[in-house]
């Protein structure tokens, strides 16, 4: 080989070797010396962990009307690091103000305000509808992140808000069903690690196996939208006509405990829960399950049930009614402070005589009376599937705060506390042949293709406080009592059993005179009760009495609901429901 070629070959060898050494040196630098740094860079730029939040389960009424659903919305954020990256060679901020601001409906000042601070990511806009969200995506700006999310919507507005509760921006349900069934409705958020290319698009070789989190379970309620609407309409009307400050109505099927409607006023619109949270957060509380009251004379149903079932009296048993009766050193008087002489149990209920009820509890004795009170569910939660149920309170001789006079006052529903739901559930037991059933709001839960009964949906017998015979006798007594003294609760063609209640309102220093809680609980048709309604009006101004204020509301609600629910009258010939 000539020298010239040999020199060239040597030069080439030296060159290649030098190049190889440089490559090896770089390899060592990248793979060994700066290993952690480059791994960090990869994780920062290429790998991304994304939380995929599933669509929240929807809530339907018993007939498939949507009560709570979800709408897609978009939020737009800006990646500050990429926005200010000088290597891009363009003025990204100017581009943001020129191209993105009009789409987002923001002024340049507003954008500057949102970019203030030293965070790496700034949220520019939330609650963009689908059209604007897509326009923001089409801008094609790599440093703008357009993220879709689900927004909870309640198409019926304030209807049944106390039952539904609301879902907030932190993805949590509060009050009512939204809170009680949070686990079922929320589903499971998926955390997915994705590799992305330089344009932040997912690498095609590494598409995550499941990009979609299965949606949360749907709830189908026992609530009937039409029934709920009628009940709410009548409740608002009742507040206007009676001058009451607030009120509530519960409608239930006494045979199963299925709640058909539960309304309270004033209420709130779950679509605008932030307004209520700022002004009157107390409105979120469902008084039907979360607030207790002294039920008053409605409770005489429980007292008479105990007396009849224990064999102490029959409907025709008489006692001598004096205007007042001394119990435990305390004088307990009739509401009219008059003596009524010899009266039967039917008259006692019709005239709502406190002395009669106290006489019964005294004759029964505390153990028997309180056993029945407990058997009817007072002092314990009903177990309804709504958030925040409270148990109420009944003092018994075992409590140090119990006085003998409590035995008398408790007999006519004073000196003890219960929730309206406990009260209606107890009276429903009388309508249901003496079987106490657990009230419930959810009928079925739908998870994907699987439909299952909610754990509360089955008719669960919570006890048999009285015998079927006693229940029928008591129903008859209540029908006669309504017929005699509360014609304003009668619905033509239907035999209505019921009882009025007028209770004083306890305050720390006694009772809040002259204010009362006026109520009426009734059910029908008495031959085969299929609907029970409790009406409660707080602090009515036109009259303090349940018979004057609450009973007519019951009548209007029942008269509208019987035909809507397809409940035939006891005597069709007499029925002509307005």
């Amino acid at each position, binding site marked *: 080989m000539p020298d010239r070629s040999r020199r060239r070959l040597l030069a080439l060898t030296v060159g290649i070797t030098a190049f190889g050494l440089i490559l090896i040196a770089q390899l060592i630098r990248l793979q060994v010396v700066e290993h952690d740094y480059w791994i960090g860079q990869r994780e920062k730029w290429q790998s991304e962990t994304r939380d995929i939040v599933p*669509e929240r389960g929807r809530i339907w009424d018993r007939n498939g*009307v*949507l009560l709570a*659903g*979800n*709408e*897609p919305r978009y939020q737009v954020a800006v990646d500050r690091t990429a926005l200010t990256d000088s290597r891009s060679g363009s003025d990204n901020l100017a581009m943001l103000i020129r191209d993105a601001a009009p789409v987002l409906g923001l002024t340049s000042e507003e954008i500057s305000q949102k970019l203030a601070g030293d965070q790496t990511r700034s949220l520019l806009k939330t609650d963009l509808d*689908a059209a604007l969200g897509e326009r923001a995506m089409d801008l094609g700006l790599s440093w703008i992140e357009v993220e*879709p999310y*689900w927004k909870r*919507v309640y*198409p*019926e*507005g304030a*209807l049944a808000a106390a039952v539904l509760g609301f879902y907030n921006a932190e993805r949590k349900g509060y009050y009512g069903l939204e809170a009680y069934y949070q686990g079922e409705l929320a589903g499971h958020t998926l955390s997915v690690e994705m590799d992305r290319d330089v344009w932040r698009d*997912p690498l*095609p*070789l*590494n*598409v995550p196996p499941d*990009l*979609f989190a299965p949606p949360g379970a749907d709830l189908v309620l026992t609530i009937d*939208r*039409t029934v709920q*609407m009628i009940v709410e309409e009548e409740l608002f009307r009742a507040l206007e006509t009676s001058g009451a400050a607030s009120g509530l109505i519960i409608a239930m099927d006494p*045979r*199963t405990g299925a709640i058909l409607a539960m309304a309270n006023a004033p209420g709130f619109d779950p679509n605008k829960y932030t307004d209520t949270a700022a002004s009157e957060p107390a409105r979120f509380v469902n008084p039907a399950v979360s607030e207790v009251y002294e039920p008053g004379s409605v409770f005489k149903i429980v007292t008479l049930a105990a007396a009849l079932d224990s064999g102490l009296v029959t409907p025709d048993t008489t006692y001598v009614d004096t205007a007042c009766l001394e119990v435990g050193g305390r004088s307990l008087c009739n509401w009219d402070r008059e003596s009524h002489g010899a009266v039967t149990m039917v008259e006692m209920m019709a005239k709502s005589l406190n002395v009669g009820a106290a006489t019964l509890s005294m004759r029964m004795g505390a153990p028997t009376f309180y056993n029945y009170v407990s058997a009817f569910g007072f002092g314990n939660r009903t177990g309804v599937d709504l958030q925040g149920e409270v148990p109420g309170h009944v003092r018994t001789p075992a409590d140090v705060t119990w006085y003998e006079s409590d035995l008398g006052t408790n007999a006519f529903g004073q000196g003890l506390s219960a929730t309206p739901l406990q009260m209606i559930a107890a009276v429903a037991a009388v309508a249901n*042949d003496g079987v106490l059933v657990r009230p419930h709001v959810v009928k079925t839960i739908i998870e994907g293709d699987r439909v299952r009964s909610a754990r509360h949906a089955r*008719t669960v017998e919570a006890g048999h406080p009285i015998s079927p015979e006693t229940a029928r006798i008591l129903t008859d007594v209540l029908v006669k009592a309504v017929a005699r003294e509360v014609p304003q609760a009668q619905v033509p*063609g239907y035999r209505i059993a019921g009882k009025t209640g007028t209770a004083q309102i306890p305050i720390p220093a006694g009772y809040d005179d002259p204010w009362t809680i006026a109520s009426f609980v009734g059910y029908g048709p008495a031959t*085969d009760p299929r609907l029970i309604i409790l009406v409660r009006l707080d602090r009515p101004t036109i009259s303090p009495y349940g018979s004057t204020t609450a009973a007519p509301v019951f009548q209007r609600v029942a008269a509208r609901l019987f*035909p809507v629910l397809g409940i*035939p*009258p006891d005597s*069709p*010939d007499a*029925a*002509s*429901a*307005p």
Partner: protein
Amino acid sequence: MNRLTEWIDHGLKRARWPASRAARIAVFLSLALLVADVYLVQSSQIATTNRRAEAMRRALTELRRENALRLSRIAELTSAARMLERAGALGFQAAEIVEFVRVPVVIHDDAPSLQDDRRER
């Protein structure tokens, strides 16, 4: 073509390789090419399929969003308040009276009664 074979011949002669060695190298190169080809085909197929799957998933997500939006809109348009308003505008009003009439029917003795229904419950 002649020039190519000449060039290969020339290369082999210059390298002074025996024919068997050249054949082994050729087989090795062919196998390497085959493996590379299979790898590339597989990779591109996986990439294409994943791209397609991703596009379909995106379309599915979009459809779900659209469905949810439509469902919500329908619910809003058929809400109780809207229906009442619309019914009123069309001249409908609440019934002032509901009359129940007896419908003569033949009742079979073995027909289930309300009491039976309640017992079954």
